């Protein structure tokens, strides 16, 4: 019953997403446009220590844009928790036999499916950034993207669950999530940053997600996978697990 309920809730998320054409276009086009304009605009004008061999910003910025798509899709999918509560749909789920756990895992599955799908579509643009992932790299990218998506959806859920205002949620995103992404290495490498910024980046779990994505994308066919991949993967997995556990505790509490 639990899986049937969770799957149904996840399917609902996807159906609702696909029925809102503006949301589909916005979710896909905004980051890609952002990447293209900023990447092309900065071009080769920034050569900072720590940049990879190719310092074309369009190339450097690409893993960051994949991360941004995962972050925004996963987080925004959880806004529906607040909308569902306001519109009354959520209470119908909460009175179902496994409603509380089903709503959590349904939202996690739904958010993850949407984020993974969109991130993979963007990864297909990788050759335009001079990245040429082979099947082995794509598989690892898929796994990394999926874990990041679960973790970020859980983070969004954790914040959205007690809230009753979507405006408040958006304000928190701007205050919390955008800096989280800035400090992941998506926009600039840690090596050239101020000491305190480097420290923040070191403790930001998203930095390890970005590092894994960047390392994997840079892996040429036939080359070994990045040495720090398992380290990055472990940190992202543990963080995701902790976030899902926190969500489970939160959702099981009744007023």
């Amino acid at each position, binding site marked *: 019953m639990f899986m049937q*309920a969770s799957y149904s*809730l996840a399917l*609902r998320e996807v159906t*609702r997403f696909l029925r809102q054409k503006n949301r589909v276009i916005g979710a896909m086009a905004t980051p890609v446009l952002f990447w293209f304009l900023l990447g092309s605009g900065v071009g080769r004008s920034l050569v900072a220590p720590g940049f990879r061999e190719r310092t074309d910003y369009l190339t450097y910025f690409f893993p960051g844009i994949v991360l941004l798509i995962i972050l925004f899709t996963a987080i925004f999918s959880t806004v529906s928790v607040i909308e569902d509560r306001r519109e009354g749909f959520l*209470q119908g789920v909460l*009175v*179902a*036999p496994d409603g509380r756990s089903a709503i959590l895992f349904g939202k996690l599955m739904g958010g993850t499916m949407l984020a993974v799908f969109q991130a993979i579509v963007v990864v297909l643009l990788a050759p335009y950034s001079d990245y040429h992932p082979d099947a082995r790299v794509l598989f690892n990218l898929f796994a990394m993207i999926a874990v990041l998506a679960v973790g970020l959806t859980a983070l969004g859920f954790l914040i959205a669950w007690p809230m009753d205002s979507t405006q408040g949620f958006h304000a928190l995103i701007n205050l919390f999530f955008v800096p989280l992404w800035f400090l992941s290495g998506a926009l600039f490498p840690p090596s050239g940053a101020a000491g305190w910024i480097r420290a923040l980046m070191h403790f930001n779990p998203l930095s390890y997600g970005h590092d894994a994505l960047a390392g994997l994308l840079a892996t040429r066919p036939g080359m070994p996978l990045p040495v720090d991949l398992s380290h990055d993967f472990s940190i992202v997995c543990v963080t995701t697990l902790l976030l899902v556990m926190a969500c489970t505790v939160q959702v099981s509490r*009744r*007023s």
Partner: protein
Amino acid sequence: MADNLYAVKVTGVGYSYGKKRVLDNIDLKLEEGGMFCVLGPNGSGKTTLFKIISTIFALQDGEISVGGRSLRRFPTPVRKKLGVLFQNPAVDMKLTVRENLRHHGNLYGIDPHDLETRINKNLEALGVENRGGEMVESLSGGLRRRVEIAKVLLTRPSILLMDEPTTGLDPAIRSELWSIISGIRNTRKLSVLFTTHLLEEAEPADEILLLDQGHSVASGRVAELRSSLGKEYVRLGTYSPKKLAGKIRKEGEIEVTIEPASVKVVPSRGLAAPLAIRLWREYSHEVTSVTLCRPTLEDLFLQKTGRLWSSTPGEI
């Protein structure tokens, strides 16, 4: 009577939001197949009680059993017995009618083949079989309510819980909704527990619980509660209630109460009808209307709380 003979039994239930006590020591018993109304003005705590029984809120004080099973100890089996209809329809506006029902069936783990059969039957029973492919957002308020009922009944609950089910509906749709609920109750042998702030909606219930500011002020069968209030009385409409009341009081052996724009006259002996005719004849130049009244639930509320129904505070 043993607990398992009651569809719902609430004993000593209390609830606080932080330090604010909003429900205190509430008891009610819904018999199998019965219809029970929790009646109260806005702010009386009925929605809080509804949320506790429907398992949305945790049970803080007291005990609740549903079909003989403790809600505190066995919330999951209890939820399977309940069909819950909220004040605002718990349907997804961006899904079609059929998708909403399918989703609800999945939440309750109904076998997919069986689910499609149940969906068809319920849509037909509620007269919305031709609306299955339409988005819920395109339906009127009345049709949404029908969809909601079709959805709730998919799981074949034995108890139907409804929180102010006619909120936001016009009088014609309200009446239609109540006749649908009455039909369902008879055909499916449902026990029904509902909340309302509309006095007329409480009348058809077998029993009522009258709430005020989180406290039970009266409970029992509607007819018995009414008869406990006493006899029929006469209400005289007038532009000068004080003056008219003064004159009538002089007659003695009549209980006179001044109301806004009217005077209530209760005969101390005899029937109210002859008194109404006499008063109309004697004071025709001062009286704008004469109404022969039976004690109402509004009178009950006035008697128990000392306040008029319409002067109550906002919803909790």
